[in-house]
């Protein structure tokens, strides 16, 4: 009888041990997974498709590529071209604006001109798209001020600015509101 009892208590204690071990293992796995997610978030790369209008270090004007926040640098890369980058800490000012542009470029313009009876003008009424523009001011190693303008899809400008501010970029004028091109129509005489 005694031996049966000891076997039963052993099995109970073994079950408890197993459960405890399982729980410890589970907790460990979950915490490890969360930790991994945390480091991934810290090193995450924010990539946005953008058109570089002018000014960014070594990037060609009016080129479309990917704008990436990689670690402490803001990078722009056109496909098949080397990466151009600036340190986010060197960014002195960021401002977001918007502008409306005609789509289609030169071929579209020529096409519209070819439409008889001024039909191309009617097409122009609908052939425009709104974009966000992000203007950056940053300093090089010599202290020289650079300016760069990027054109992004509508709504992405704010996201990029917030990400850059979170990574250590500065805003000197303190005006975080979006400035619309349509609003700025002052003509001081």
């Amino acid at each position, binding site marked *: 009888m005694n031996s049966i009892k000891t076997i039963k208590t052993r099995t109970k204690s073994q079950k408890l041990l197993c459960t405890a071990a399982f729980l410890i293992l589970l907790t460990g796995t979950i915490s490890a997974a969360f930790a991994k997610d945390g480091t991934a978030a810290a090193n995450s790369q924010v990539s946005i498709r953008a058109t570089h209008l*002018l000014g960014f270090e070594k990037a060609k004007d009016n080129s479309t590529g990917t704008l990436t926040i990689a670690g402490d640098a803001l990078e722009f890369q056109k496909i098949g071209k080397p990466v151009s980058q600036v340190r986010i800490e060197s960014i002195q000012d960021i401002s977001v*604006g918007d502008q409306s542009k005609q789509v289609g470029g030169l071929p579209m313009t020529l096409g519209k001109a070819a439409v008889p009876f001024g039909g191309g003008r*009617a097409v122009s*009424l609908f052939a425009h798209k709104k974009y966000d523009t992000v*203007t950056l001011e940053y300093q090089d190693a*010599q202290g*020289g001020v650079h300016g760069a303008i990027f054109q992004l899809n509508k709504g992405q400008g704010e996201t990029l600015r917030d990400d850059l501010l979170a990574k250590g970029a500065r805003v000197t004028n303190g005006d975080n509101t979006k400035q619309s091109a349509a609003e700025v129509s002052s*003509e001081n005489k």
Partner: protein
Amino acid sequence: MKTSKPTLLLALAAAALVTLSVMKPVILRAETSSTQWSVQVTKVDSGAVNLEPSFQVAIYESLLDELNKTKHFKQVLRDGDREANGIADLLILKTTVERYSAGSETKRAVTTVAGATKLTVRSQLCTRGGKIVLERTINGNVRFMGSNLRAPHNLAHNVAKAIKQSSLPEPASAVAQRDAEVVVVEVR
């Protein structure tokens, strides 16, 4: 006495060569005197005008580009560049926006006559001491085709053109060098 055509052409070519050889030193002298200046472009002052930051940056960057293209200056430096401290013959280009009309690309495309983007700035070239060497009011517009950001580019092109066409005074170091040459000649 008749002169044949080839002889006449030869004579003309020789005259042209002589004229060029006489003119060349004069042109070179003018170029060297102007290239001795360096210029530092300061950030654009929007003054009382509510100018978009993208326009300010576009004017600034376009000015640097266009001034470099003219090859009128020894060096074109950016605002805040520490290298400027060591340059003796330095001019500072200040740009103040006087008038701005935003315009609209769509309006231009639809109406042709309306929606022009207009920019007017006052450009001043000053010495380090604050003496104004050159002052001009310059426009940059987009009237018919192109995006609004074409206006700063046109403006910068016009500023660079105005500076190139103007006669800048000789820098102090060039004057000193010339005086030294005169002394050497006198000693001989």
